[in-house]
């Protein structure tokens, strides 16, 4: 493999305390040198002046839809979308058909991924068989097959006893359990955040208490078992407080937040006009919350309470969203807008750049121990894997869903102007994607 030199960019590797204008040399798929005034060695030179150079993003929560729901997305289309969004490693949720609940299904999935995926993919196994919440999956066998974490994704493990056992077994097998914290009884058919907008629009609400109660229970089970617990997409101010409290007590709890919940509120459902739009593209589970909750997440990210920004990228077919709000499938296709919204929030002064980068790179890697799978993942370090992203922080662009690589065009950001985007993405030392106007 030939030599690649990324020259003159602001290299930002928060975990290693690097934030300086530097050159990065890549050879044979690994980073070989970081320094100043590195000389080209005959390979490609990328001029990154004015750009941010950082490790490829690592996503702990994404939906690829294959196998089973190829009309919504495939491994090929969704990993291409991830690539364009700067995500070089993604953890794929097990809400597929079949669900990876046993070694044979998991192995078949790994083979498919090896053939089709455009970025590194670590698939999750399911906590329970068919994600039905009744009987546990073959947890140790999944771990032996290379599974990094288990989750029942959109189906919270309602049975507390089952959850306790799953946590203990997963931890013993060296895996994390990622839980969508939600109380289905309290939610009772809710489709958006319970509050001003739900009452105005006459939509059933999902109360904050449903998330908070589930987080509290799962933290208690984490404490009881000493097992690693990852709380997926925290959306509420009270929820994040509980996580901060658990961390302060030294419990092995980590958490993630989505770019959608950092950027949008429940108002996106009503839309900007005087008459409510019932924008099904803003339907997501857990729901977009209030401005107060959004600010709590922003603050928690800046403070370091949040380990990872995870996309919860969820592509859907047109007909899944072009319908009555109650019938619309929840989820936002956001691989290709995540960097844009996050950098926009940095440009607005809401989010701190170093914290955003950390939560997209080393944060998730440490949370799930992914560096044991691939040396240097989530970092730029000599001898480490060369997964690198070059970002243009000041670049304005307009979201156009039709131009997205994802099969899912379901974004509530259609037509929005964002500041900052992904310019070049390097996976394993190879320039795998660059934006059209990119020079060099």
């Amino acid at each position, binding site marked *: 493999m030939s030599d690649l030199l990324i020259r003159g960019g602001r290299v930002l590797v928060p975990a290693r305390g690097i934030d300086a204008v530097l050159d990065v040399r890549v050879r044979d798929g690994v980073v070989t040198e970081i320094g100043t005034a590195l000389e080209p060695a005959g390979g490609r030179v990328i001029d990154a002046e004015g750009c941010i150079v950082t490790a490829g993003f690592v996503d702990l929560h994404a939906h690829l839809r294959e196998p089973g729901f190829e009309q919504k997305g495939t491994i090929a289309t969704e990993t291409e979308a991830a690539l364009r969004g700067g995500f070089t490693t993604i953890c794929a949720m097990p809400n597929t058909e079949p669900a990876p609940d046993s070694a044979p299904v998991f192995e078949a999935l790994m083979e498919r991924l090896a053939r089709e995926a455009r970025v590194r993919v670590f698939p999750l196994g399911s906590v329970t068989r068919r994600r039905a919440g009744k009987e546990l999956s073959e947890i140790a066998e999944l771990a032996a097959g290379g599974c990094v974490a288990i989750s029942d994704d959109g189906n919270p493990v309602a049975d507390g006893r089952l959850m306790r056992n799953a946590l203990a077994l997963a931890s013993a097998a060296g895996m994390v359990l990622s839980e969508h914290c939600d109380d289905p009884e309290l939610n009772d058919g809710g489709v958006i955040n319970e509050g001003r907008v739900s*009452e105005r629009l*006459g*939509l059933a609400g999902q109360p904050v208490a449903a998330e908070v109660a589930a987080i509290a229970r799962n933290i208690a089970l984490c404490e009881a078992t000493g097992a690693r617990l990852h709380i997926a997409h925290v959306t509420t101010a009270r929820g994040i407080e509980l996580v901060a409290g658990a961390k302060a007590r030294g419990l092995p709890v980590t958490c993630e937040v989505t770019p959608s919940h950092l950027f949008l509120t429940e108002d996106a459902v009503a839309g900007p006009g005087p008459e*409510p739009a019932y924008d099904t593209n803003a339907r997501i589970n857990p729901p977009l919350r209030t401005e107060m909750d959004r600010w709590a997440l922003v603050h928690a990210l800046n403070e370091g309470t949040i380990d990872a920004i995870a996309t919860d990228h969820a592509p859907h077919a047109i007909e899944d969203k*072009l*319908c*009555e*709000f109650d019938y619309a499938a929840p989820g936002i296709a956001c691989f290709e807008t995540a960097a844009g919204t996050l950098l926009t929030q940095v440009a607005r002064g809401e989010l701190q750049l170093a914290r955003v980068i950390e939560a997209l790179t080393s944060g998730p890697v440490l949370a799930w121990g992914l560096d044991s799978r691939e040396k240097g993942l989530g970092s730029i370090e000599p001898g480490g894997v060369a997964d690198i992203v070059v970002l243009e922080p000041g670049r304005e662009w307009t979201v156009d869903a039709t131009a997205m690589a994802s099969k899912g065009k379901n974004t509530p950001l259609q037509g929005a102007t964002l500041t900052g985007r992904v310019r070049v993405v390097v996976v394993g030392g190879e320039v795998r994607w660059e934006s059209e106007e990119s020079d060099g």
Partner: protein
Amino acid sequence: MADETISPDAGSWRRKDLLDTDTLSREEIALVLKTAEAMAEVRSRPMPKVATLRGITVVTLFYEQSTRTRASFEVAGKAMGADVVNLTASGSSVEKGESLVDTVRTLEAIGADIIVMRHSKSGAPALAARTTKARVVNGGDGQHAHPTQALLDVFTMQQHLGDLAGKRVVIVGDILHSRVARSNLWALMALGADVTLTGPATLLPQTLVGASEAGRCRTTTDFDAAIEGADVVMALRIQKERQATGLIPSLRDYIRGYQLNETRLARAKPGALVMHPGPKNEGIEVAPSVAAGAASVIDEQVANGVAVRMAVLYLMAGRAA
């Protein structure tokens, strides 16, 4: 001649669709009510029918059971000479799983000028309105809005009370799940009335009314206090399934706290109006003696429904701007 004598108080109707009352201005509501007065006069003639909407096709597209709203729109359309086509979810392609969007596009293609839509899901008419060039009138969607019901309610109130500014209206029942309560609230607030929403704590909205509107709308669980001195008391239908889902312990418990009965009505202003959007559960949310009593204008509401819907169809029959 009339062409050259535009009345000075002539409001204008520029909306493509009528989805709710929440964005209607005081002037727009006044225009509908004034037009409805003229329609009520037409209904009182020896020949209670005009040919104004000849050549206009009105489709009533009902995804949810309804007798009075659908019949009311049908009579209104026919009284104005429109062709009225009734479509219900059963017995049509809707039952075969056709999507709302496809159904609405089909109706447009066959020449529907106005689609009157009833749907069990909130926001469905907004989706339909975005989908078609035909005009969409919301005939009630889920727990969201029922604008023509609210307009006929304020029309009925105005007939008895005149200007509604400062009048005290109490709405009692399952406010949280009621499209009638919501649309009435917005219309009444636009007309300057003071509204009190009352019902069991589990059936009251927490944040429906913003802080800026709080002066004109209150919510309380104390019906007996709320009804004191009221000009209008509107009882809402209580769905029996609220008991099964644990929102109310029992109908008996509900009746005890929230039935509009004679003892309670005596606390309202003398001559206060008793209203109900129907269909009513007599003996549950309203005592039979009150529903049939002198204060009740429930039958007038039904009659006025036709006039108000004629007004709405008339105002919506022009070429969409």
